[in-house]
């Protein structure tokens, strides 16, 4: 077998060449860049007509909340959605990539995507990267074979469950599910239970917060309820609508609403054969 002399490894995987240099820099006091994590509470459950997914909306960069209203429920296919916990870049990238692969697959086969297809694509990608792609996912959808709910761990193992939680708030949310979940939930009961579980994560876990997103997937129909519940409104909103630094004295306020700009498209000549 010929030996390839490249910096980049031949078949996927990460190159760890700079690890020693990074260690040396850290010893000298250079701070490594902190990356954005979705602390997170993500949940999914199967109800009588399909699958309901839920997520909080806080994204953290170390101890700071960098996004108070991010979207953690990612689109995979018209009938499949995926919640992502862990490193935000990893969850975004991996769900985007598999979503594109599924779309190509739909073109090739002419059929609706199946949840196990998405599952296999995600798990083999994550396994190949041996856990370094830190994405913990809750994948749910309804296809011809019925409703499915799976959890996928960063190392590539998967579980198939009737209800699942992931992320730093998973214990708080699982406590709610374990006490209140039963088979044959109706849509409203399911949404209420998912909201309760996410709220449990939001209020009891420091890595989760802000609002609740819910996604209901049934046969042939999906509803993405973005910001279904907003239990954390801004407590002090200045009535003025603007704020300058303390030394600036406001002498006159004049509000001019922007005029609406309407474009008129010239109707072209009719096409002639």
């Amino acid at each position, binding site marked *: 077998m010929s030996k390839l002399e490249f910096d980049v490894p031949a078949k996927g995987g990460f190159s760890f060449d700079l690890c020693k240099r990074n260690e040396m820099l850290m010893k000298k006091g250079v701070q490594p860049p902190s990356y954005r994590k979705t602390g997170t509470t993500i949940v999914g459950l199967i109800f009588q007509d399909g699958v309901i997914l839920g997520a909080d909306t806080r994204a953290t960069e170390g101890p700071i909340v960098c996004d108070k209203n991010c979207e953690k429920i990612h689109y995979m296919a018209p009938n499949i959605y995926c919640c992502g*916990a*862990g490193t935000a870049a990893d969850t975004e990238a991996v769900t985007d990539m598999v979503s594109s692969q599924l779309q190509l697959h739909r073109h090739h086969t002419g059929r609706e995507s199946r949840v196990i297809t998405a599952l296999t694509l995600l*798990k*083999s990608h*994550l*396994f190949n990267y041996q*856990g370094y792609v*830190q994405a*913990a996912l809750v994948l749910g959808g309804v296809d011809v074979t019925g409703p499915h709910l799976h*959890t996928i*761990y*960063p*190392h*590539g*193992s*998967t*579980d198939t*469950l009737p209800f699942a939680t992931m*992320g*730093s708030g*998973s*214990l708080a949310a699982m406590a709610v599910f374990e006490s209140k979940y039963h088979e044959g939930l109706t849509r409203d009961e399911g949404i209420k239970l998912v909201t309760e579980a996410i709220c449990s994560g939001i209020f009891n876990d420091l890595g989760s917060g802000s609002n609740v997103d819910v996604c209901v997937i049934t046969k042939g129909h999906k509803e993405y309820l973005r910001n279904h519940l907003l239990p954390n409104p801004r407590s002090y909103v200045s009535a003025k609508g603007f704020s300058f630094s303390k030394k600036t004295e406001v002498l006159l306020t004049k509000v001019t609403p922007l005029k609406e700009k309407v474009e008129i498209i010239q109707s072209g000549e009719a096409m002639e054969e």
Partner: protein
Amino acid sequence: MEIDADAPHSMGTTIIGVTYNGGVVLGADSRTSTGVYVANRASDKITQLTDNVYVCRSGSAADSQIVSDYVRYFLHQHTIQLGQPATVKVAANLVRLLAYNNKNMLQTGLIVGGWDKYEGGKIYGIPLGGTIIEQPFAIGGSGSSYLYGFFDQAWKEGMTKDEAEQLVVKAVSLAIARDGASGGVVRTVIINSEGVTRNFYPGDKLPLWYEELEPQFSLLDIPSSPGPEPMNI
């Protein structure tokens, strides 16, 4: 207690495979742990490879799932090329080849069991390094440490199907009682010439051992319970 969500998902596990007069019985618990958190309390560790061969998985959840996926794929190809069902020996050897050749990267112990028309019921144990050993019974996983003595005493040749299944259920429940990394329910799979039977034993159906108590509901759950009598001084 800090939950390390990045800890690799491992199946603490108790897995057992036992031959009997006419086939094999495979048994396992159902706990998958991530550090000290139970990530899945009802997992199915007995995975199908072909119609007549199943494998019990232990160790790293990801590694064992990937290995069984690959072996299922290779066995499917092999069955097409051979024109008849694969033998248990072939299935076990395919598992062994993957486990041995990738021993540096994999951390999974497996028990392959099944029935074929040439050899009947067979059990093959494939522990961590990738050795393959054909045994009348095999135990694996963290909970198996507590079962070596038990099997030395309780195992006998030529059991009937029910005796073998009861032995497996008893053994897994004993291991669950003592091993923190095993728990949940007991699943068994019986494979013989007639086919495959899956059974499920929830926690309350298992026998109680030393110091184990009857399940009791909390008094708070009973709405009619009036509460303790006030003390009279």
